């Protein structure tokens, strides 16, 4: 089984999709920005299909929407999720609603790749986790892979999907190496990444790895944690989460985004509605404080939720 990085899996999947379908093309600022996710592709596919764009997030997103409506399959990259703010009209008012408002005449098979996450001293405008905003918009699908295998599988699925899909990567995962088991990863299917009988932890993106580390720590205390990665936020695979809660009767939802108004709140609301009688304890949420991300390294480290916060939430759920 070949070893690959998360970033390498993305580049390889883009190349495969472009080789298989001439309608697929990529566009973004500086061919993948500081990480160069699309850098290797221009040699094979040429500058017409690997388009280096000016720093015009709104226009390139709009061009991608128009191209998608006219039959192409664009993969547009917004270098930091923080800059999706600049493209929101195109994403929210145009892409998300075109199929609906046209009575089904238009489809927008668009993938918007972007990345978020703190931990690299980027300060408050280059480190956010804004996925919750995007999950609030009917018409968008939102995926958030935590491993190279899921990144590859979900990117292929997103490119094949007839709807606009926002693909949220995490910059701290880009160079994480793993044995890459290539498999189909359908949009909308969660994965139980570690089975356990005592507490379910539903974790997103980087927090999946933090939760697995916390689960190791807690195993030493005799607590068996089940870690579930939704992988897709919209549509959410509630069934897998509810099944897990039916086994453990306790739930922790963990993400790096600000807890207030985060995806965790939505998951908690859906689970309590579906499984109120199964729950033996209040649902615990792990997320960042309600503040912008500080620059100063010790402050950023203290701000970021991780292994310790997940473990503490699991203990709280158990009344310890």
């Amino acid at each position, binding site marked *: 089984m070949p070893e690959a990085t998360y970033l390498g899996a993305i580049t390889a999947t883009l190349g495969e999709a472009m080789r298989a379908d001439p309608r697929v093309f990529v566009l973004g600022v500086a061919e993948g920005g500081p990480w160069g996710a699309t850098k290797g592709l221009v040699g094979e596919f040429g500058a017409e299909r690997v388009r280096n764009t000016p720093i*015009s997030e709104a*226009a390139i997103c709009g061009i991608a929407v*128009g*191209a998608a409506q006219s039959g*192409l399959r664009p993969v547009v990259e917004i270098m930091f999720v923080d800059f999706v703010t600049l493209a929101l*009209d*195109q994403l929210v008012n*145009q892409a998300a609603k075109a199929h*609906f408002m046209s009575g089904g005449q238009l489809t927008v098979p668009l993938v918007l790749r972007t990345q978020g996450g703190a931990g690299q001293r980027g300060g408050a405008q280059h480190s956010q986790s804004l996925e919750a905003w995007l999950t609030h918009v009917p018409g968008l699908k939102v995926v958030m892979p935590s491993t190279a295998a899921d990144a590859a599988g979900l990117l292929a699925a997103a490119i094949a999907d007839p709807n606009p899909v926002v693909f949220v990567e995490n910059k701290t995962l880009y160079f994480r190496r793993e044995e890459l088991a290539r498999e189909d990863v359908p949009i909308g299917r969660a994965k139980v990444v570690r089975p356990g009988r005592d507490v379910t932890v539903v974790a997103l993106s980087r927090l999946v790895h933090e939760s697995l580390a916390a689960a190791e720590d807690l195993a030493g205390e005799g607590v068996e944690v089940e870690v579930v990665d939704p992988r897709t936020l919209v549509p959410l695979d509630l069934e897998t989460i509810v099944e897990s809660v039916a086994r453990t009767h306790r739930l922790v939802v963990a993400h790096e985004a600000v807890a207030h108004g985060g995806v965790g709140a939505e998951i908690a609301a859906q689970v309590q509605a579906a499984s109120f009688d199964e729950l033996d304890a209040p649902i615990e949420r792990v997320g960042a404080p309600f503040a912008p991300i500080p620059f100063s390294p010790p402050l950023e480290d203290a701000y970021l939720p991780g292994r310790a916060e997940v473990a503490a939430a699991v203990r709280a759920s158990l009344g310890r």
Partner: protein
Amino acid sequence: MWRIRVFEERVGRLTRANEIHGLVHLSAGQEAVAVGVCSQLRDDDAVYSGHRAHGHAIAKGAPLEGVMAELMGREGGLCRGLGGSMHLVDVEHGFLGATGVVGGNVPLALGSALAARLSGSDAVAVVFFGDGAVQGGIFAESVNLAALWRLPAILVCENNGFAEFTPRSAHTTVERVSDVVAPWELERETVDGNEVLEVHAAFGRFLEQARAGQGPFLLECLTHRLGGHYEGDPQLYREALAAAEWQELDPILRLQRALGHDGFEEEAGAEVEAAVEVARASPFPGPDLGAELVYA
């Protein structure tokens, strides 16, 4: 042009009678731009419009009954009643859509132009927007990209002198939209937008070049919005033109004076009345339609 004029006037009456709801922006007075441009386009040429879109859709070939039923929110509407006045779409005739966000349609047209180029077609993309759209950042971003990538797109500005409720002079120091794009050196022209033959000729010159893969182009059409920004706008910000003054400006009367032809008004009236009857007979959409069409 009569078809659009009579249609818009009928829509105005139906809005006042509460048969058409919501925000309705009429294009009466600006017909020459829609007709001078769209009469030269094919179904595979993409046209985008803004919130004042009825005339563009009709000129591009959208059936009157489909537009009227859409404005009434009926199942038989172009968009099955889910779009409304500001979001008309008729894919069959290449009307890829109106958008209610001023300026948001410009990059969409560039995307369609790029799609035409990448798929080896000689189709072009056209986007209609008002002079108010030019002050938005998305306009500059889009013009820059269109020029950089030499996209076969024709930007058609309907400069009616008012950005919603405000005269152009209060929003910008640049009087002509064609001057706004001057630094990019794209081919541009300002014409009398109430003179359909002039619009037709200028657009035709650009179209020929766009079909050959050149672009982008900007055509600024100086025109006049006969009504307010929206239907029901009291228009306290401007004085109405004197009737005699409008007679001189009216693109339809001017064409009649040039060609001496008449009789279209009655014909258009009958077509519009038939469309109203078809639309009225169409049911409202079922309650589940919305949920069915969130995703493709």
